[in-house]
């Protein structure tokens, strides 16, 4: 426009031109921004939003603490501890592998050579390895200490991750009932049966993080975890331990295959100890054969033998058919149809009272007394005593035992069942049946869970659901008890070894032929057992010891002394004084 260009105008150029150029530049820039905006918002908005979120947003699991399994006094049989796994990045650890391996070996007690190999090999067949487990389930205090120490010494490449740890402080004590955990899930015992109650529900938290700290006004949501509930059992940790040790000594010394022992609180039906042998260490279940991981006391069937005579004679007395003084002529052997019944000891024709039949454990005498039953009566009594049906105390895989239906019984079946053969039971069933006599004829359902708990199958179990049912009269129970006391008598009985000095003890031995797994017949091996209670006139504990296939000895000599030791300990532990009354003097012969 102006004809005379000024020195400044020349340098700046024409304002219009400048404006135009400026607008063009601005328009170009804006269109680039616009295009980018369309690209970001229109074409693929989600992936960018996610990338932005992933930058600082952190989601973590808030693990629920697993409930403990406790004994009756609240001592843990199983508890959970915060654990960590230690992970190595071999690429970083390789330069100082030898020193680090020695350090870890000292601190964590892990295999040196194995660890060294893991720390050193950071390349296999051209693939780079950046992850090796060094140790799993290390208590987090130890793991953190080790890592801090390693850091201080300048060893790089170790990290930790959460790895919950289940600890069984008493090792093998009660392990057959408590069970154990696998890597991720429970594998056996209460751990598995009550998993829902024990495990609880995991929670989670999402929050934004900057520089390792939570951003105060950033996104933050949290679902709190619901911790698992404890499971309280009726087991007494110390008594359980003692029972297991006595049982192991008994099984080892008798050269036996296996055994179990049950201690039951006579009045409440709570199981104070359920010991199995051989057992396993719950902290190392893989070290033991699979056959030892269950509970033989509930999962194995066996024929109870003479211990069952207690149920037969108490039923007979309850029906008013016999009394402890009933006179029975016992012949040397008894021919019944095509079979002959023998006693365990050779004898001529002897005159025994019913008390004598029990004290000397005569099969023939029991069969002769049982002849007084009408068809079906013994079957009905045995079912009321709880035989032939599961106790349902919350132990998985329990066997109901095998009691043939009453209408299929022949005379020979009744003869054999009357002295404890031709029927099978599980240990707790039988202990509860003998406890019925101890408890004055009222059967209390056995329990191993204190209070109430629901199994994963929805079954409700526990002491809150104890049932009591009269099976035989108080008089019948008392008279049976008086006869059982004669079993312990050193002069007339067969099991003086079961005596607890100073106390009145009632009990019954059992030596039964055993059915072999292979042939399905009596294979010449025995089950020896002893069941009893004390103090006889005011019982507190019913104890049942069963030993399978001992090399030598019978119920009185193998299981009897074990019974006496466990009973003595239980009476001492629970401070049960002797009743101070005179023991039974029932005549055994006439």
């Amino acid at each position, binding site marked *: 426009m102006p004809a005379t260009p000024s020195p400044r105008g020349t340098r700046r150029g024409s304002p219009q031109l400048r404006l135009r150029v400026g607008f063009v530049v601005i328009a170009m820039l804006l269109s680039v921004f616009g295009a980018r905006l369309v690209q970001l918002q229109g074409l693929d908005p989600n992936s960018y939003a996610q990338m932005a979120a992933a930058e600082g947003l952190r989601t973590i699991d808030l693990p629920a603490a697993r409930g403990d399994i406790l004994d009756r006094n609240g001592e843990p049989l199983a508890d959970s501890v915060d654990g960590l796994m230690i992970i190595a990045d071999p690429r970083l650890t390789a330069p100082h592998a030898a020193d680090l391996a020695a350090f870890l070996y000292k601190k964590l007690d892990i295999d040196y050579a194995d660890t060294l190999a893991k720390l050193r090999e950071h390349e296999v067949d051209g693939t780079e390895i950046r992850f090796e487990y060094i140790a799993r389930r290390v*208590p987090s205090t130890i793991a953190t200490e080790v890592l801090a120490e390693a850091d201080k010494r300048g060893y790089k490449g170790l990290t930790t991750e959460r790895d919950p740890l289940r600890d069984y402080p008493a090792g093998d004590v009660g392990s057959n009932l408590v069970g154990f955990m696998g890597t991720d899930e429970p594998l056996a015992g209460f751990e598995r049966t009550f998993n829902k109650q024990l495990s609880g529900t995991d929670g989670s938290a999402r929050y934004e993080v900057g520089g390792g700290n939570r951003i105060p006004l950033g996104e933050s949501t949290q679902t709190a975890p619901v911790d698992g509930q404890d499971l309280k059992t009726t087991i007494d940790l110390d008594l359980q331990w003692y029972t297991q040790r006595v049982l192991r000594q008994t099984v080892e010394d008798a050269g036996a295959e296996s055994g179990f022992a049950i201690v039951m609180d006579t009045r409440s039906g709570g199981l104070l100890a359920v010991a199995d042998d051989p057992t396993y260490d719950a902290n190392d279940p893989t070290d033991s054969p699979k056959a030892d991981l269950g509970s033989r006391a509930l999962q194995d069937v066996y024929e109870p033998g003479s211990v069952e005579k207690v149920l037969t004679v108490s039923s007979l007395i309850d029906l008013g058919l016999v009394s402890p003084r009933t006179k029975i002529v016992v012949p040397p052997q008894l021919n019944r149809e095509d079979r002959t019944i023998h006693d365990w000891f050779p004898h001529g024709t002897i005159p025994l009272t019913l008390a004598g039949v029990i004290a000397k454990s005569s099969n023939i005498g029991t069969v002769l007394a049982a002849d007084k039953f009408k068809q079906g009566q013994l079957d009905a009594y045995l079912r009321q005593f709880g035989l032939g049906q599961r106790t349902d105390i919350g132990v998985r895989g329990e066997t109901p035992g095998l009691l043939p239906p009453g209408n299929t019984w022949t005379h020979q079946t009744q003869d054999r069942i009357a002295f404890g053969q031709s029927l099978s039971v599980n240990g707790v069933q039988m202990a509860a049946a003998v406890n019925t006599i101890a408890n004055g004829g009222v059967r209390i359902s056995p329990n191993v869970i204190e209070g109430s708990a629901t199994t994963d199958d929805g079954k409700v179990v526990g002491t809150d659901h104890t049932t009591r049912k009269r099976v035989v009269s108080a008089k019948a129970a008392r008279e049976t008890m008086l006869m059982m006391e004669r079993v312990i008598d050193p002069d007339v009985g067969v099991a003086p070894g079961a005596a607890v000095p100073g106390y009145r003890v009632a009990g019954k031995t059992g030596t039964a032929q055993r059915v072999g797994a292979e042939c399905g017949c009596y294979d010449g091996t025995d089950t020896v057992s002893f069941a009893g209670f004390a103090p006889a006139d005011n019982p507190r504990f019913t104890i049942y010891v069963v030993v399978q296939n001992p090399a030598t000895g019978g119920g009185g000599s193998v299981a009897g002394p074990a019974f006496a*030791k466990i009973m003595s300990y239980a009476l*001492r532990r629970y*401070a049960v004084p002797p009743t101070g009354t005179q023991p039974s003097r029932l005549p055994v012969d006439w």
Partner: protein
Amino acid sequence: MSTPAFQVRSRIPRFAEDAIERARLTVVPNRRTTTSRAPFLALVSMVLLGGVVGLLLFNTSMQQASFATTALEQQSTRLAAREQGLAMDLDRLRDPQRIAAAAQRLGMVQACSPAFLQLGTGKVTGAPCADSTPLRIYERAPVKPASLNPKPIIKHVPAPPSTTNSTANGTTANSSGDTATANAGRAAGDGKKKNQ
């Protein structure tokens, strides 16, 4: 400005007063406020500055709280882990097996049968005594199978014919024992011979 109105009002009849009043309305001159802008500006800037500084302080304190939270959370986790670790140690120490082993090392044994001391009367019920068969708290060592644990092979070697009677007697007497004893016996025999 109100003076003429008074004059008019005095001269005209009272009934027209209102009308005249209306007719005489004049525009009020725009009154200019002369207050300074400075206080207002100062106030606004104060509010602005206060807001910004306050927000900054608030944010800082939130961040501080966040740091504190993180630190305290870490401490809480550490302490919880420590507590669990200690509880675990305690449970291990309370393990009946450990206690029994410690007790047995001290020479303690199980009692044979319960005995009671009645505190009121000082009377003792039952006879306290030690159990005759001690409780074995460890598993018995497994018995080696015969193939791994062969019986020692014992060969009975007849004594070499010797010149003196005394030596011969010495070796024969020990031939049923193991080799070491036999040698010892023989040495003793030799010694005897020398003494003789």
